[in-house]
């Protein structure tokens, strides 16, 4: 269909980057919030991403993943989560005492449980 449009018109209707809060699925976030309330305390300071070992090698940012989970933008999270080495430096630097490692573990769990996202 899309290619078909390309042939006929030379372009297709672009899809926006806008997060549509209502239509997004935040079940993953709810699963985590339920089991790890400290998830709420994140103020997106980025300390975790700054110290992150994986972050040294890739664009992996736990801060970003945290917020994407909360917004229900789960695809990117699913693709990146497994890069985490669980080394725990993030937990050590977090100024809000967020149990970051557990968030990663729970997120993996949650994805595992919801078929549509299974890693």
């Amino acid at each position, binding site marked *: 269909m899309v290619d078909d449009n390309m042939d006929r018109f030379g372009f297709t209707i672009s899809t926006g980057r806008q997060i549509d809060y209502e239509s997004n699925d935040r079940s993953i976030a709810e699963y985590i919030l339920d089991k790890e309330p*400290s998830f709420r305390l994140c103020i997106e300071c980025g300390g975790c991403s700054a*110290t992150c*070992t*994986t972050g*040294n*090698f*890739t664009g992996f940012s736990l801060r970003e993943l945290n917020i994407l989970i909360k917004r229900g933008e789960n695809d990117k999270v699913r693709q990146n989560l*497994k*890069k985490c*080495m*669980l*080394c*725990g*430096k993030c937990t*050590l*630097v977090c100024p809000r*005492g967020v*149990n970051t*490692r*557990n968030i990663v*573990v729970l997120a*993996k769990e949650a994805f*595992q449980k919801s078929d549509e996202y*299974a*890693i």
Partner: protein
Amino acid sequence: MNMRFDPFVIPFNIGLYFILVYVVTRCVIWFRDLSRTDKLRLQRGFFGVAFVLSLKEIFMESLIHRKILKTNIRLGYMHMSLAFGWFLLILFGTIEADIFGAKHLNAPYKAIFFRFFNPDHGRTGFEAAYGFLMDLILAFILSGLLLAVTKRFYSKIVGLKKTTRLKITDKIALTSLWLIFPSRLLAESFTCGAYGTGSFLTGSLGAWLATFLPAQQLAYPFWWLYSISLGTFFILLPITRYMHIPTELFLIFMRNSGIKTGDHSGTYTEVQTYSCSSCGICIDACQLNFSAGITNIQSAYLMKAIRNKDDVSEIADNCLMCGRCDQKCPVGIELSPIRMIQRRGGEAENDIRNIYKGYFRSRQTIISEKAIGSSNFNFLPETDPEKADILYFAGCMTHLTPAIKNSMIKIFEASGVKYSFIDEQGGVCCGRPLMLAGQDKEARELINYNSQMIWKSGAHTLVTSCPICYKVFKESYYLDVEVLHHTQFIKRLIDDGSVKMNFLHKKVVYHSPCELGRGSGVYDEPKEVLNHVSRLERSNFEDGNSLCCGGSLANMKISSQNKKKIALDAANELTKNNPDILATACPLCKKTFSAVTYARVADISEIVAEALIVKPVNKNSGSHINSIKELANI
């Protein structure tokens, strides 16, 4: 007069023969399920010294309960009086029946209900003396029983802060157990009262009862009660925690034959879980309990949950893996390894529990292998480390405590050994944290990556500052490289005189990190190093008994508040006599403690660096070459 048989013994007989058959079958099944090697071990053990050792241990632990006695005298006495006392009762009862009975080699019930079948036995002389002995043993048991009953209702008495919760079948079994000895007492007393026999306990009690009660008529029902409670207890045994009584014997024998828990659940794990008597000593040992007030995840509960085939994931993950319970467990169950197995496993399927399942259990295995999906560390760059004899791997945590890192560099430079700091720019995680989260597959990827790097460097020694790394390098990396924690390395430098240092006149107390101490058995070197440079003071929590700082990476679930509570308690304990320095050998411990205490917290490497006499070292002096040789144990 001498009766042959009476119907009231039937319940007892049923129970007795049932349990005998049951236990034998279970042992056969367990044996059948063992791996080939373990089977061999067991066979060899049976005809070897292991058998003798086991008998000794069984006597010491299963009857006398030495370990429990050591940790908690009252609790120990309780277990001993019941176990050992009952054993004696049976032993001497059998002998009694054999000597004084109508004929030799009686059926068991003849011994158990001897007094019933020989009511007017024991009036004079040797018989009386023997009767006295039997009464004595009974009194011994009853005293223990008294403790047990009070413990149930008021556990403080036996010095336990927390006592395990029970399921209904346990309750029934417990009551029947409690009824056994009182009913025997009364049954014998009434009989004695009726016939005017019996010794100081049964005799006098019987005589007194007979003064106002129809002893003759009352004796019989109590003999029934005695028999029934025995029977019930035996029947229920397999589906209650009391299964630990027979299982423990088998466990002891297996252990002495050299069988280990390993990484996957199997017979040995199963036997261990059934050997747990839920004595609750692990609950007392657990800092999550006495510092953080978390009281539902201790090993006793884990064992129970596994036995009941509950979903244990919540319990299994909420643990510091400090290993204190392993150290304290009187039955010697390898609790942490079992917990790790649970973490590796996915959720166990919740199968319907019923009496039948209780008796004929399916094999104790993790149902679904925890599925985390293919992990993805292929972003890690190709490594080409510089060649070196000795590698220094600081570890992730050490990069958050630069003082340690810098001290180590200072020490390396001073010693003049040729080394290479492989994770100077921040390295790749050692893999242990993933393992502790039960994600072995992922951990293996990192292990392979680091192994590559270490192998390419051609080093013969690997020094790390982080006990977490140390443990995994030592246990899970297959390298022919000697792995040393920096405390061990410093010890060597001191021994072969590669470094000289002043004596700091400072009061130091040492906190042994879990992963280094209990985890890897490195207790002495750190203390020796500290002794060498400072005044090392003893604390109440040394070596195997040392506390956890609470910062452990092993606990995924604990909140930062609870971590703090644990750290605070531990720090307060250690700094009781206000030392100048609270020394540790782990960056994580250091970080955790620094946050909660005003005392100076320092890693041993820092203290050493402080005391170091930095002298220009002649890089190619012979002595230096030797020291390298020694280091490498060439």
